[in-house]
Every structure is written in C-alpha cells, then in structure tokens.
C-alpha cells in the first residue's frame, strides 16, 4: 500500500470496527430486552450498525489489496488489530448503561457521518450519507430514553446517573486524533474530530440537562488508546464470542 492507501485502510477500520462492535454489543440484548418492542428496537439498531460495518470493512479490504474480505477482517483479526472506539466495547450493564452508551455513540456518529457525507472519498461519502438516516433515528430513540430514565423515578435517575459517571471516561477517546486523521483531513477525506467535539458536547449537554442528570467535570481523566489498538479487557471476550465459529470452522458459510 502506498502512503494514502495505508492511512485510508486504517481509517476505514476505525469506522467499520466501531460500528461492528457497537452492533455486536446491542445484539447481546436480542431476546433479553425489557419489553418486546425495545428488544426489536435494539436489534434493529444493531443490524443498521452491522450493515455500516460491512461496507466499511469491505472497502478497507479493497484498499488493502490483499484480497481480505469483510468476513476475514471481522472474524480473523485479534484484539490489538481492532480499531473500534473504547466506548462501544464497554459491557452493556443494565438498560441505562446500554442506552447511555448508545446515546453517546449515536450523537457521535450523527455528527461524524454528517461531516463525512461531504468527504472527497466517494465511497466514504456515500456510506456516510446513507448511514446518517439510520443514526438520526438511533439518536432520537436513545435521547428519548435518556430523558425518560433520567427524569423518571428516583431509581431510574440514580442508575442513569451511575451509567453516565461510569462511561464518561471513555468519551475522550471518541475524539482522539493522530497522523492518520491529519493526513486524511488534508486530503479532504476525513472529519476533523476537534470540530465536532464542541457540537457533540452541546448536543448531549442539552439532553442530559433536560433529563436532570449531572455532567461530570470536563477535567475528568480520559482513557484513550483505540487508535493504536490498545483496548480495555472487554474486547477480548467480545471477539471470543463473535469469532468462535469462524475460528473453529475456518471458511464456514451459511
């Protein structure tokens, strides 16, 4: 791979892996939702995210030029090779944790895809434009839940506040940038995450305040590392479950 392809491959892995792991986490709720309607809502969101992951990973494989398919990338890479943001690999916890995680991530994807739909890379722009409609709905659904859980009963408020406090330290990683971003921003392909960070904060502050939740201090220590494949302990367990079939029966097909 020459210079630009190398960073573009990396960038597509970040986009694809984040959606893939978020989708896998939501899929864990399948059959366990608090009510049937929410079970379906979460698996719908999961399918949207996995759809996004498929396109980004397929594209990453094409850029790499080693004939790796979307399946090869999803099922045959190890933890250190994954580039998903740390937030999405965190455990689902109770319903409040899942919704808070998904709310943070949906607001992030909403702003990210809005920017990327103007990317000079035609494939990224097309996927982003298509996916924007999906994540707009995810954001609406999760925002409505945060409002109801935060401004609900004493217990729902407490659990939602706990979820917010516990997940906050993983939100800095969403906006972490390195030379991959710098190079692609120069080429008009990537999104400047510093730019959307302010919007993201404004967006979530509005909902969290309405939901009667306290936003943790901006000086909170933030955990980072996803850009270089440094993950929390949870990703390994996710991959073990997600990849087991392909690892045990290499090349297995439906």
């Amino acid at each position, binding site marked *: 791979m020459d210079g630009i392809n190398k960073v573009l491959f990396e960038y597509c892995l970040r986009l694809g892996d984040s959606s893939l792991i978020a989708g896998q986490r939501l899929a864990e709720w399948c059959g366990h939702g608090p*009510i*049937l*309607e*929410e079970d*379906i*809502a979460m698996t*719908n969101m999961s399918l949207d995210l996995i759809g996004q992951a498929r396109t980004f990973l397929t594209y990453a494989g094409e850029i790499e030029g080693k004939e790796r398919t979307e399946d090869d990338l999803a099922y045959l890479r190890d933890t250190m090779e994954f580039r998903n943001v740390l937030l999405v690999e965190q455990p689902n916890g109770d319903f409040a944790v899942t919704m808070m995680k998904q709310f943070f991530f949906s607001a992030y994807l909403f702003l990210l895809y809005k920017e990327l739909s103007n990317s000079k890379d035609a494939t990224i722009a097309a996927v982003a434009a298509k996916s924007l409609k999906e994540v707009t*709905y995810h954001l*609406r*659904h999760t925002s*409505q839940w945060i409002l*109801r859980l935060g401004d609900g009963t004493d217990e729902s408020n407490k659990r939602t506040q706990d979820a917010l406090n516990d997940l906050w330290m993983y939100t800095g990683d969403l906006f972490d940038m390195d030379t991959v971003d710098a190079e692609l921003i120069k080429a008009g392909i990537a999104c400047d995450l510093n730019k959307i960070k302010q919007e993201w904060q404004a967006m979530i502050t509005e909902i969290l305040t309405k939901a009667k939740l306290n936003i943790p201090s901006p000086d909170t220590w933030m955990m980072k590392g996803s850009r270089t494949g440094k993950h929390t302990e949870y990703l390994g367990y996710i991959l073990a479950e997600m990849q087991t079939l392909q690892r045990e029966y290499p090349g297995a097909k439906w």
Partner: protein
Amino acid sequence: MEENNNSTQWDLWEVFTQKRTGAPHEHAGSVHAPDKEMALQNARDVYSRRGEAINLWVVPSEAIVANQPEDVGNFFEPSNDKIYRHPQFYKLPKGVELE
C-alpha cells in the same frame, strides 16, 4: 377498559400504517409504550422495519370504541335482508361493460 393497577405493562396503542401517499391508513397491530412519542417509535420498529410504511398513526387502544358482540343483530343485519341495498340487485343495461 378494565383497570389493572398491578400490571407492569405499559399502555396499549393501536398502530395504523400508510403504505403510499393517498392510501388509507390501515390497522397493523398494537404496541406497548409509556407515552405517544415512544409509541410512535415502537410502532416504527415493530411494523415498519422493512420500509412497509410512509406514515404511521398511533392511537391509545382505550380511545377506540367498538360495538359489543351482542350488537351484531341490530347493527348489521338490517342491511343484509334488503337485497336492493346491494349492487348485485340491479341488472346492468345492455352494452354496459364491467371493468
């Protein structure tokens, strides 16, 4: 509707979907939801997840008024025993073709 204070279920909402512009909204089924916005979202997820609708209505089930089964006689039968109320009673004039 019977009150059930022990119920942990949310209220029931009836869902109506419109398949294309100008088409009538048709009853698709029902969903549980705590309020109207969530009812709309649940309806979207349960009844339009493969693009079956372009518009949705949700109505609290308790807002729907239905006749009682024992009303069948006085509600519907009077219109059935007068054959001239049905179009089949009238013979088509010669030369008129049915579409």
